[in-house]
């Protein structure tokens, strides 16, 4: 097979590694150790498979190899302080090894194990950055190099971040479990936040020359879909997936010929991906059917769905969007949500109604340097025929934005209003 086997082995790694790590973590009760064991098994596969051929059930082979290493490591007693603890773990691993069929054990438990792994990788004891890196590494099957490339930081930074995160989990003795009862909602929010952060970093990159990095969007979308399969009874998981699918459906339309951003209402809607829209709407329906009222992600998905359903911008149901922002503002209050609500109200009920809401935000400290406030205000003033005031607002907005292309656009609008 020679070196041709490597891409195949890497593909197997991407498919198998999350459940491999999850299954091992349940046995050895340490995510960091589980990941090392899985890596060792992968290295063994890279050494052996090109000669011996890929085994019939590669997942079972990797699991078996990793478990044998686990026993060796535990016997050498390097990991655990007390002899008692060591014997306990050894027994647990030995039991697993004696189990008649690795595959059967793997299939039955792996969903639960993966969910435990998700909650552990997104544990609040970790910083947001650490959660993101660990989730991509353990659940996305990305290499450290791939994560570093995606976030445009040196490989050593990500490597350190992951090492430190694993150490923190061990030191804090974070249990490998799915939180129960009252703890669940908050912990789930932390998981969803990580997936949403990864998506957003791809959707509106905060660093680098490209303002989108679609690969990260795809990784986040995949993680979201996996999560929906693991926790199908959670409406907000489907809400998040719906939001991501619909936002991702616009990827092709969000960039102009020379890479410049194209705003939602200016996008060529024929370039939206209808398959993703259909999937997004289906996910939103699942969230709605589960009941209990829509959460923040499902509400945002509902807003995105209003746009997705409109074949032309004129068809947009702005009154419904305004009502959804209203609900969102009550659930997750934020001045930015209020500003969006004002835009929707302006579209639905006329610029004067929108302006009234925007003016209430003028004293909001967190929006002082937010260029979209004067930009939105300028737009409403222009529609009301108050041209001089509109021009001043566009100029102000231009002075606040960091984005060169956006500044140019705003200055053009200022000049047009002043005429």
């Amino acid at each position, binding site marked *: 097979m020679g070196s041709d086997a490597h891409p195949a082995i890497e593909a*197997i790694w*991407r498919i198998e590694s999350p459940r491999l790590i999850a299954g091992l973590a349940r046995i050895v009760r340490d995510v960091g150790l589980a990941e090392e064991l899985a890596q060792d098994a992968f290295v063994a596969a890279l050494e052996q498979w090109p000669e011996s051929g890929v085994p019939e059930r590669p997942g079972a082979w990797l699991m078996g190899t990793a478990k044998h290493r686990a026993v060796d490591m535990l016997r050498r007693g390097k990991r655990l302080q007390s002899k008692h603890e060591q014997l306990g773990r050894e027994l647990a691993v030995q039991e697993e090894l004696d189990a008649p069929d690795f595959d059967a054990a793997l299939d039955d438990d792996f969903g639960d194990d993966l969910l435990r792994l998700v909650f552990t990788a997104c544990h609040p004891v970790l910083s947001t950055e650490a959660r993101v890196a660990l989730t991509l590494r353990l659940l996305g099957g990305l290499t450290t190099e791939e994560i570093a490339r995606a976030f445009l930081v040196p490989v050593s930074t990500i490597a350190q971040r992951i090492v430190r995160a694993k150490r923190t989990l061990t030191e804090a003795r974070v249990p490998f479990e799915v939180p129960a009862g009252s703890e669940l909602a908050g912990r789930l929010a932390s998981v969803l936040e990580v997936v949403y952060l990864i998506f957003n970093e791809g959707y509106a990159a905060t660093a680098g020359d490209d303002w989108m990095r679609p690969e990260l969007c795809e990784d986040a*979308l995949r993680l979201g879909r996996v999560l929906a399969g693991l926790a199908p009874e959670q409406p907000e998981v489907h809400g998040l997936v719906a939001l991501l699918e619909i936002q991702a459906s616009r990827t092709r339309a969000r960039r102009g010929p020379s890479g410049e951003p194209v705003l939602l209402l200016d996008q060529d*809607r*024929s*370039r939206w991906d209808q*398959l993703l829209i259909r999937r997004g709407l289906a996910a939103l329906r699942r969230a709605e059917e589960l009941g209990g009222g829509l959460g923040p992600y499902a509400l945002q998905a509902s807003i995105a769905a209003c746009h997705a359903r409109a074949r032309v911008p004129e068809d947009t149901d702005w009154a419904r969007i305004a009502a959804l922002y209203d609900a969102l503002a009550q659930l997750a209050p934020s001045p930015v949500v209020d500003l969006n609500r004002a835009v929707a109200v302006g579209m639905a009920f006329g610029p004067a109604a929108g302006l009234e809401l925007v003016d209430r935000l003028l004293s909001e400290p967190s929006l002082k340097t937010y260029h979209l406030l004067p930009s939105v205000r300028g737009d409403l003033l222009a529609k009301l025929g108050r041209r001089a005031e509109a021009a001043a607002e566009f100029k102000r907005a231009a002075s606040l934005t960091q984005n060169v292309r956006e500044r140019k656009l705003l200055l053009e609008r200022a000049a047009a209003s002043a005429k």
Partner: protein
Amino acid sequence: MIIVKSDEKTEAGVLPDTEILTAMGKFNEELVKAGVLLAGEGLQASSKGARVRFVRGKKTVIDGPFTETKELVAGFWLWDLKSREEAIEWVKRGPFAETEIEIRQVFESDDFGDAFTPELREAEERMRAQAAGER
């Protein structure tokens, strides 16, 4: 796109037995849980289909069934994956005994380059949007 071919049974309109359905259901579930499966459909026997043949612009309608059983498409999946190798590995995990599964990469419309003009692209997507709306 993962293309599953016909055999005598699918062409005879024989529905899969419980065992196959269970195995296929399990495989599909695994694909969903891995975030891989985007869409998929099974196709009815070619006796319910038709072909329109074009010869120098002249059109002839040919009713099914069609004889070249093993070349016919019996169903397809759309999978979202990072590489061809991943698709191969997933197909290997499928519950198949005696068949040949074909893996093909779907064109994104950006792959067509300049030959796919904005007007063509728009017409194409509009058609897709309509098709999606009618489902």
